[in-house]
């Protein structure tokens, strides 16, 4: 796994130029807010924020924002040097979605966002327990965590209730902050890939693929189209077992133990076939940096197809039964509803956003790294409650199974072209029909965007001489967590919490990093 060969074809002559230079950090912040807030509620914003933050690279530390235009797929970079080196205007004041990002930036780099609505430390949660927001007679504060019921990740929640009614909920994360981005700095991309795979274990492929895309772009290296198909296949396999897991947890939260057991079987079978194919049940090592050929899929195709048929039948049968079980549906309908105006205010992503009727999916966006002819039909619903999140995952399962079949048919028939040529032949790059992120980033920078099981995963990095200088990770769940608190307090009672928790299916590790 560690001795990955990288063919880096750096072109010294064509030095890439930084894209646009915003005149000041105030302009930069306004520019981001203008592009990321849609004209109307519950519409897709004109652009997506891929990354916003402070880049400490000497000699010119600066603020950077990376946006992706959703109609053209163009990725735009803007840099700004603040007039006062330790203060920038707050983006969260204009767009709440940036709140946690700015709190983290403030605490880790000391850059203060002026006018931030809720500036509190975020990285050392043990020292700063959240204060209550609600006051009055009958208000009860109920702390939950960081060690919670059953087998779960560590995170803290402060409930404020009146009777059974939840008035307010504050999630507090970053208990598991391991400083992965800082650990990666100075490492070679092959070593950093090991870290990337361990950001969030159940999104191993998503993070590994996003990292590889970013690193390959920074090294100006293009991979073969078959490798892109293969990565897409692993991504779908990951989505399949995650959706099975999330639905099993949801069934268990609603007291449906038979469905839970059966969906857990689906997950286990998928993990086993993953293990058989790659040697790791969580697909560690499946995505290789700078890979020039996929596995030989011809002998692997039929076993995988067989498992897929079997689990698909079981999954469809039991989700169908669940859908026709009134006690289950009753438990879910209207539970943990996301209001329309939160969707754009918090820049939601993934199945949670699609359950609110927002057609956001990195796989379907222009300029995204995807194999030719690989169409994703967006699966959206409109109510934004736990039932819709259930339905969206069921729909996505079907889409994913279709995509895996299609990709398998292609990978299983195509003889990998580069097979005989071996690894030394660098002359075959770039392959004729590999599609790449179409914007040219500044020199040494790379960006990777991938639709993981929980939504958009984005890695931004800067490299010189095959060492990482700067690395930023934005997992899908970090966009959704602030809304989770709001949705739980949206007219629900305490016993709804497990159902809402399971229906969101968020990752702590991917947010804490």
């Amino acid at each position, binding site marked *: 796994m560690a001795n990955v060969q990288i063919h880096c074809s750096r072109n010294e002559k064509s030095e890439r130029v930084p894209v646009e230079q915003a005149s000041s950090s105030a302009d930069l912040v306004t520019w981001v807010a203008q592009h990321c807030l849609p004209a109307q509620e519950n519409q897709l914003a004109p652009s997506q924020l891929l990354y916003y933050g402070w880049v400490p690279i000497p000699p010119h530390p600066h603020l950077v924002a990376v946006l992706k235009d959703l109609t053209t797929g163009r990725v735009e970079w803007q840099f700004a040097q603040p007039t006062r080196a330790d203060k920038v205007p707050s983006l969260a004041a204009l767009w709440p979605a940036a709140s946690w990002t700015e709190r983290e930036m403030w605490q880790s780099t000391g850059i203060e966002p002026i006018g931030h609505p809720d500036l509190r430390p975020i990285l050392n949660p*043990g020292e700063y327990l959240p204060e209550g927001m609600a006051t009055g007679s009958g208000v009860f504060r109920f702390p939950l965590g960081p060690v919670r019921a059953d087998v779960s990740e560590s995170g803290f929640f402060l409930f404020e209730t009146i009777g059974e009614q939840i008035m307010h909920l504050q999630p507090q994360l970053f208990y598991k*902050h391991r400083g992965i981005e800082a650990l990666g700095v100075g490492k070679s991309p092959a070593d950093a890939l090991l870290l990337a795979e361990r950001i969030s274990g159940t999104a191993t492929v998503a993070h590994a693929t996003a990292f590889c895309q970013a690193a390959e772009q920074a090294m100006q290296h293009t991979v073969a189209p078959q490798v892109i198909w293969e990565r897409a296949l692993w991504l779908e396999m990951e989505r399949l077992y995650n959706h099975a897991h999330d639905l099993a947890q949801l069934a268990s939260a609603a007291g449906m133990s038979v469905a839970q057991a059966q969906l857990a*079987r689906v997950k286990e079978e998928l993990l086993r076939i993953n293990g058989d194919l790659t040697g790791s049940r969580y697909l560690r090592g499946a995505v290789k940096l700078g890979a020039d050929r996929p596995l030989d899929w011809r002998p692997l195709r039929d076993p995988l197809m067989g498992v897929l048929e079997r689990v698909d039948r079981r999954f469809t049968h039991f989700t169908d039964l669940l859908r026709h079980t009134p006690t289950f549906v009753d438990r879910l309908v209207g539970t943990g509803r996301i209001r329309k105006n939160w969707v754009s205010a918090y820049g939601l992503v993934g199945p949670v956003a699609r359950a609110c009727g927002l057609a956001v999916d990195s796989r379907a966006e222009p300029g995204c790294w995807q194999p030719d002819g690989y169409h994703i039909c967006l699966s959206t619903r409109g109510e934004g409650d736990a039932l819709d999140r259930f339905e969206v995952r069921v729909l996505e399962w079907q889409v994913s199974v279709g995509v895996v079949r299609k990709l398998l048919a292609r990978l299983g028939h195509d003889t990998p072209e580069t097979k005989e040529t071996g690894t030394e032949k660098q002359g075959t790059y770039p392959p004729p029909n590999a599609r790449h992120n179409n914007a040219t980033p500044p020199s040494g920078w790379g960006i990777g965007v991938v639709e993981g099981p929980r939504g958009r995963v984005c890695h931004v990095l800067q490299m010189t001489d095959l060492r990482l200088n700067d690395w930023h990770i934005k997992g899908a769940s970090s966009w959704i967590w602030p809304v989770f608190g709001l949705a739980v307090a949206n007219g629900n009672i305490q016993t709804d919490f497990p159902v809402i928790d399971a229906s969101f299916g968020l990752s702590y*590790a991917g947010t804490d990093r």
Partner: protein
Amino acid sequence: MLTEARPLIGDWNQLEQTTATTLRKVFHRSVYVRHIDVGSCNACESEILSLSNPYYNFHRLGVFFTSSPRHADLLLVSGVVTRPLKEVLLATYEAMPKPRLVVAIGVCALHGGVFHSSPWVVGTVDSVIPVDAWVPGCPPTPFAILQGILSAVQHRQGVCLDE
């Protein structure tokens, strides 16, 4: 009970029998397990959770998850110990009644794995609390975790006889 063939890893039947006999001897067939995550990537949790799926179904061996450390005989710890979770791990351990067993799950818990040099990490699990058994792997399979639980119980059984 199982409708599918059992996994072909190791000698499952023998492990199952040894586990069942040992557990009956030491715990009278009811081992209560509490899990704590002290900075893992979530794959270890996923594998621990798999123990309760119909393929491994560790309930039939008399092992159960419990929500409260006060009811727990055995603590499964996964992940590197991060700064804020060190106190939490200690508090959880202290809350458990004696005799208590600790099984460290995954290479993170063993020696820190890829995160060992992070300034946010305070150390391995055994630098905070005594550990009875280690289960290597990233993540270890459910089968290995079950074996880890068994080793811890057997180890403690030896200690009990000595005393």
